[in-house]
């Protein structure tokens, strides 16, 4: 989706607000939203965050976006209702659930690295050294292909292995595993002659985002 979240290369978005040694969390509620998302095993919030309208997205703080996305997801999945969010109380008629995450499982999961790489043998369409171009596509829902790579030519630097395509539009019921490649673009190619001739950008891209150049 060509949404506000896809902001690579935009200008005029204010100050970075850099602070040395700044902590990851500022207010106690921030880490609690973070933990609620993990406790609900509710990863994969990105599509919900990206649906937040641009003006709201820019106004919200980072963990406010997480809260909004989590609530939207839980309501749309039928896990909680709007009325329950409004009242803060469970519908007396609802069935009490069993927590997805117990303390013991939480401790184990925290330091077990999840594996999303797929053990599937697929013939790669591209190889290290190939020149490839970012396809000019405009998916209307979740994608991991930034706008600034579209129509730009780069070189395959590395084959990352096989991962499921994350694009909502292209993946309905069936997963779509494919190779992911590390692509090298020169700054000149992406940003024009005024960019530094020495500089470059590296990004991992799914096979469907690329075409031979």
């Amino acid at each position: 989706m060509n949404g506000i979240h896809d902001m690579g290369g935009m200008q005029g978005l204010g100050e970075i607000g850099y602070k040395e040694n700044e902590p990851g969390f500022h207010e106690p509620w921030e880490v609690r939203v973070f933990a609620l998302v993990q406790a609900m095993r509710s990863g994969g919030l990105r599509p919900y965050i990206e649906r937040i309208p641009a003006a709201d997205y820019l106004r919200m703080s980072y963990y406010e976006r997480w809260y909004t996305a989590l609530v939207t997801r839980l309501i749309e999945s039928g896990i909680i209702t709007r009325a329950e969010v409004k009242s803060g109380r469970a519908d007396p008629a609802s069935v009490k659930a069993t927590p997805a995450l117990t303390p013991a499982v939480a401790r184990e999961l925290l330091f077990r690295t999840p594996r999303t790489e797929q053990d599937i043998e697929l013939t790669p369409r591209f190889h290290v050294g190939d020149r490839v171009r970012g396809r000019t596509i405009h998916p209307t829902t979740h994608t991991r292909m930034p706008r600034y790579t579209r129509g730009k030519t780069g070189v395959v630097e590395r084959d990352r292995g096989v991962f499921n395509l994350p694009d909502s539009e292209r993946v309905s019921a069936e997963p779509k595993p494919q190779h992911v490649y590390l692509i090298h673009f020169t700054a000149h190619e992406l940003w024009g002659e005024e960019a530094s001739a020495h500089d470059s950008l590296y990004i991992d891209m799914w096979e469907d985002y690329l075409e031979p150049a």
Partner: protein
Amino acid sequence: MSQRHSDHAQDHTDVPSDPALRVKALESLLVEKGLVDPAALEGLVDTYEHKVGPRNGAQVVARAWVDPAYKQRLLDDGTAAIAEFGFSGWQGEKLTVVENTPSVHNVIVCTLCSCYPWPVLGLPPTWYKSSAYRSRTVIDPRGVLSDLGLDLPDDVEVRVWDSNAASRYIVLPERPQGTESISEADLARLVTRDAMIGVAKVASPRVGGGA
């Protein structure tokens, strides 16, 4: 406080505008419904507030500085070499370590959201997630680095890593001069999170003081 209603304001117009109260209400709802175990939640909060952070990454960097064989393993397969320290977990499936040298400077960004190597750096600081950092770092990395206090000579190659797919990235900073006789543990104390994101260099230790 300004209005902080979400875009889904029509969904919950009656919820408090204060995020702390809204989150508290959501938490108690999820606990009441049996969806969240309070003890599991406290474990998660404690872990991500106190146990996971850039000190992990600093140990990895210091080891790479003193042990050439480890450094090679780290650059060849970051995930496996980092797992030697027992650092693993969410957002750590494929860790790629990129090395700064006198002629190459690497900097990490996630333009689409906030991808970040949690097992070695913890959760990202606010500035890393800011619209300005995410938007500008790809088109004007030298300007961003300069704003953050790092001016690079023109002949240094800047490599920007937009981490938003399979891999998470961490920068192996240059070992500062004057640290030849410093122990691995003391070296680790010199390494900052910002150097491992690539927006700073590791400073030489000052005589009689810290970094």
